[in-house]
C-alpha cells in the first residue's frame, strides 16, 4: 500500500515538474514519452531440441545449460516485436557506404615473408604448419560417445 502510494506521488511530482518546466519555458523537449512502434502480445517462441542441435552444429559452440536456450528464446521474442512493420518496396541497407565503390588493390605483392609472424600465435605447430586433429567427424557423434555436455555442466 505504502509502496503504491509513494509511486503515485512520485509520478505526480514527475508530471508536475515536467509540465512546470514546459509551460515556463515552452520547451521543445516533449513532455511525455512517445509511444513505441514495437508490438507487444508476441507469443513466446519455443525452440525445439532439433533446432538446438542444429544451432550447436552451425555455431560450433555448446548451449551447456537450459539457461542458454532461454536466452535465445528471449532474444527471438525481442526480434519478433518489429516484424509487423511494413517494409514493402524497401531495399535492404547492407552498408552505409553504398554510394561509394570499393577500391581495387594494385595486382602486386605488397606483403610477404611473414611466415614466422603468422605461426607465432598458434599453440601447436609442426614443421611450419598449423596442426588440426582428424576431420570429417560430426560434432554430435562425439557427444553421444563422450557426453561432453555433462562434463561441461560438471565443470560449471
Amino acid at each position, binding site marked *: 500500500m505504502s509502496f503504491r502510494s509513494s509511486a503515485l506521488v512520485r509520478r505526480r511530482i514527475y508530471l508536475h515538474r515536467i509540465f512546470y518546466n514546459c509551460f515556463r519555458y515552452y520547451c*521543445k523537449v516533449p513532455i511525455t514519452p512517445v509511444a513505441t512502434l514495437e508490438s507487444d502480445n508476441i507469443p513466446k517462441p519455443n525452440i525445439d531440441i532439433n533446432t538446438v542441435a542444429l544451432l550447436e552444429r552451425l555455431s*560450433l559452440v555448446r548451449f551447456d545449460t537450459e539457461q542458454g536456450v532461454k536466452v535465445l528464446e528471449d532474444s*527471438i521474442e525481442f*526480434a519478433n516485436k*518489429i516484424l509487423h512493420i511494413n517494409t514493402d518496396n*524497401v531495399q535492404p541497407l547492407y*552498408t552505409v557506404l553504398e554510394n561509394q565503390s570499393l577500391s581495387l588493390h594494385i595486382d602486386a605483392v605488397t606483403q610477404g615473408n611473414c611466415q614466422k*609472424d603468422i605461426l607465432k600465435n598458434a599453440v601447436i605447430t609442426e614443421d611450419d604448419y598449423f596442426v588440426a586433429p*582428424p576431420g570429417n567427424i560430426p560434432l554430435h557423434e562425439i557427444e553421444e560417445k563422450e557426453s561432453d555436455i555433462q562434463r561441461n555442466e560438471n565443470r560449471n
Partner: protein
Amino acid sequence: MNKLSSYSIRDIHKAYRDKTLNPRCLIDQCLDRANKTKELNAFITLTPQVAHEQSLRCQERLQSSKKLNLLEGISVCLKDNFCTENIRTTCASNMLKNFTPTYNATIYSKLMMAGACLVGKTNLDEFAMGSGTVDSIYGPSRNPWCYNDNWRIAGGSSGGSAVAVSSGSSVVAIGSDTGGSTRNPAALCGIVGLKPTYGLVSRYGLIPLVNSMDVPGVFAKNVDDAAITLNCIAGPDDLDSTTIKSAFKPISIKEDFDISNLNIGIPKEYHCKDMSIEVIECWQFVTDLLEKLCKVSCVSLPHTSVSIAVYSILNQCEVASNMSRYDGLEYGLRAKTNYSTEELYATTRSQGFNNVVRSRIFGGNYFLLRQNYEKYFLKAQKLRRLISDDFENVFNGDNKVDLLLTPTTLSDAPLYSDFTAKNNRDQCALQDYCTQPANMAGIPAISIPVKLSKNKLPLSLQLMGPALSEELLLNVAKKIEALVNFPVLEFNQYLNKN
C-alpha cells in the same frame, strides 16, 4: 601538478614549450595515477616501458624542433581490442588471453606518428559486447565518480578508456563504438566521447564486432582535445577498404564560431518511457540555453523506437559470422582435446567465450537459418534503411535541421549491483537506446557532459549530425561545453581515501 586530470593538450604543450614540464614527467605522473587507482580496474595491461621509450623520443624531438607534433608527448591508451605489435591484445576474453599481435592497428600507428605515448590497454566487455564493462574476464571497471564500496558502473563497452581519462591516467583514449560503446561510458564518466562518421577512421587492426557499424571512438576531457585527436587518426587507409576515399580535411575549432544561423532539431522519439526525469530536465536545460542562441525545432525520426531491436538482430548476425574465425588453430585459446577437428573447435569456443558471446552467436545463427534469413536478417536490413532514411529526411528534407540534440543515456550511472541484476540484452536495450541509431545510419555523434545529477553523477547529452559533419558537430559541442561549464572530477578525495 595535481591538476593533471584537468589539463588540456594545449596546456601541456604550453608547459613543454615553457620547459615547466617534459614528456617523461607527464608519463610518469599518468602511470603513477594509474597505479594509485588500480581499484578502478581501467587497464588490462599497463605499458610503462613503451610509454617511456616513446616519451624519450618526444623529448629528443622537442629539443631539436620548435614545432610540436599534434599529440607530442601526450599520453593515450587504447581499448584492448586494437592490435598492438608485441603488446598482448585480449578483447577481455579467455579466447585471446594469449594473443600477441604481430602488427599495429592503423590508429595506433597514426597516434605514434603524431608523438603520442601509449600508457596501456584498457578494459572492455568481452569482445566489446556490453554496455557496462561488467563482462570482462579481468573483472568490471569502476566509475570514479562518487567512488565508494557501493560503486557505479563505468558504462561500456569501452569503460576502461573512459575511466582512464576521467581519472587522469591518460590525457586522451581510444575506444570503439558499435552501438554506443564510446558515447555511453563517456557520458557516465563525465567526459567527451566522439563517434566519427563510419569509414572516416580506419578499422584496420580493430578486432571486429559488427563490421558494418564499428567505428573507432575518441575519449577526451574536452572538445578541443577530441578534435586534435580526431585530426590525427582520421583519413583514408589502404589497409581498410571501408574507409572513405576522399582526403580528410582537418577540423578547426573556432573560438568565435557563429551558431545563430543554425537549426538544432529535438527528435521527440528520444523521449522514451524508461528515461529518468533528471535526464529529461538536463535535455530541456540545454535546449532552452540553445534557443536563446539559435533556432531550435521539434522533429520526428519515426522509426527510433524499433531501432534497438533491429540493431540487436544485425548485431547478432554479424557477430555469428565474425566469431567464426576463433577455432583454436591459428591463434588464441586451443582446448586440450584431439579427437576431431569439430570437437576441438566446439570445446575451444565453449571454453573461450563467455555466455554473452555464445548466446549472440546462437541468436545470429538462428536469424541466419535458411528459413529465417528473409524473415529476420533481410527484414532488419530493410528497417535499417528506414531508420537511416529518417536521418536523411531531417537533415536534407523540408524544414531541415543542421544537428540533433538528444540525451546519451537514459539515466546517470547505475549502481553495479542494480545493473548486474539485469541480463546483458536488457542492459543493452536500455543503455543503447539513444546511441545505436547513429551507428545504424553511420553518422557522427558526440556525447558531452552537461551537469551533475542529484547523486552528484554526470549527466550528458548527445549531438548527432549528417555524415562527415564533424567540424560543425565539434564546434557546436564546444559552444555547449562553454555554456554549461561542467565540473572537473575532484580526484584528491579519492586519493586520500586510499
